[in-house]
């Protein structure tokens, strides 16, 4: 074989290979190259943003741009896969979702009833406690009110001078010792002149029953 030959002399050495058409046996998905162009321009744009110094302050994780082409590619593969395989392929027994509905309801409603029983009991106890508190407060209130409304309480509120003056005007003879008891010695009227024993005797004879 002539290694210096730059022409297609090898064809003489390999006739089978030479007779084959040099067609490209590989193919690509439809619109692949136009899509590729857009994708590559997009990646370049993103790369330029990453390289640009006067950024707006945004940063990305260190390996982001290295992983980005792979991530974009994965997303595209995923999209293509979704187009080819629309469903997961799993199935369930017939009527499954109907019975599932009932099962769930049964379990949640039961729980709801249990919960409402407990809350009902708690609510009852709470109301009893509230009623008892109200009764106690009312009792105390009534008691205090009554305390304030006894005769002694009322009289305690009237000034002593008013009572004495009243008794002076409206008193019976039996009230006299009580009046004297409660009068201050200074309040007793002083006679202008001392009375003789004879005058006192006459007075007593005239007033005694």
């Amino acid at each position, binding site marked *: *074989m002539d*290694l*210096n030959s*730059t022409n297609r002399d*090898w064809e003489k*050495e*390999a*006739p*089978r*290979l030479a007779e*084959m058409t*040099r*067609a*490209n*046996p*590989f*193919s*690509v*998905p439809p619109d692949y*190259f136009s899509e*590729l*162009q857009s*994708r*590559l*321009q997009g*990646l*370049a*744009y993103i*790369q*330029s943003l990453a*390289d640009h110094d006067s950024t707006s302050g945004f940063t990305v994780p260190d390996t982001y741009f290295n992983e980005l*082409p*792979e991530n*974009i*590619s994965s997303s595209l*593969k995923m999209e293509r896969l979704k187009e080819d395989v629309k469903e997961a392929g799993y199935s369930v027994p017939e009527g499954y979702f109907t019975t599932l509905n009932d099962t769930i309801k049964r379990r949640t409603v039961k729980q709801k009833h249990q919960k409402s029983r407990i809350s009902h009991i708690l609510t009852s106890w709470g109301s009893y406690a509230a009623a008892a508190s109200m009764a106690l407060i009312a009792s105390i209130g009534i008691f205090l009110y009554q305390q304030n409304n006894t005769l002694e309480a009322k009289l305690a509120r009237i000034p002593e001078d008013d009572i004495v003056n009243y008794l002076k005007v409206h008193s019976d003879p039996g009230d006299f010792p009580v009046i004297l008891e409660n009068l201050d010695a200074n309040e007793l009227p002083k006679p202008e002149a001392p009375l003789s024993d004879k005058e006192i005797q006459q007075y007593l004879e005239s007033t005694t029953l």
Partner: protein
Amino acid sequence: MTGTFLFFYMAPIEDEEILHKFSNEHTRAQAFEMLLKKYQQKIYWHIRRLVIDHDDADDLVQDVFIKVWKNLANFRNNSQLYTWIYRIATNECLTFLNKKKQKNNVPLEDVSYELADSLADSTYFNGTKAQMKLQEALLTLPEKQRIVFNMKYFDDLKYEEISEILGTSVGGLKASFHLAVKKIEAYLLNHD
């Protein structure tokens, strides 16, 4: 009629124009769009022939052009733009295949079996039986030999261009290519 002609005629995008626009921040995105229009398919197919699976090729082509975007500003014009891009793509593929080997803890030739399985199961393979056999034959070659064969046979690159891409001498590449041709011919004969 003239309008139709003009509509279908697109002036080839020059690498100098791409590099010039890319050097200006305001026209960088436009330059990248032009670069993609010119090279994305070529690079994709270069990658695809090496890794076989479309999804793997899709991942790698994104990685390649992200690297191109990041590093084009540093491109020194000491090689052609497309050989520079090809080099990035080839290195990405070799790294990918090595990782596959390490991940599965298998020798490199067993990675080829995996690729052959991928070929057999592939949704995106529309070749004839003969073309399938050719791809199987290619997978029996060492990686570098397969790369050289692909670039010469399918991409019709010159040895000088392949030398720029792989950093191998022209003589070495010629030897590599002719060895590959011999092995493939033998495979096709034996698996008739």
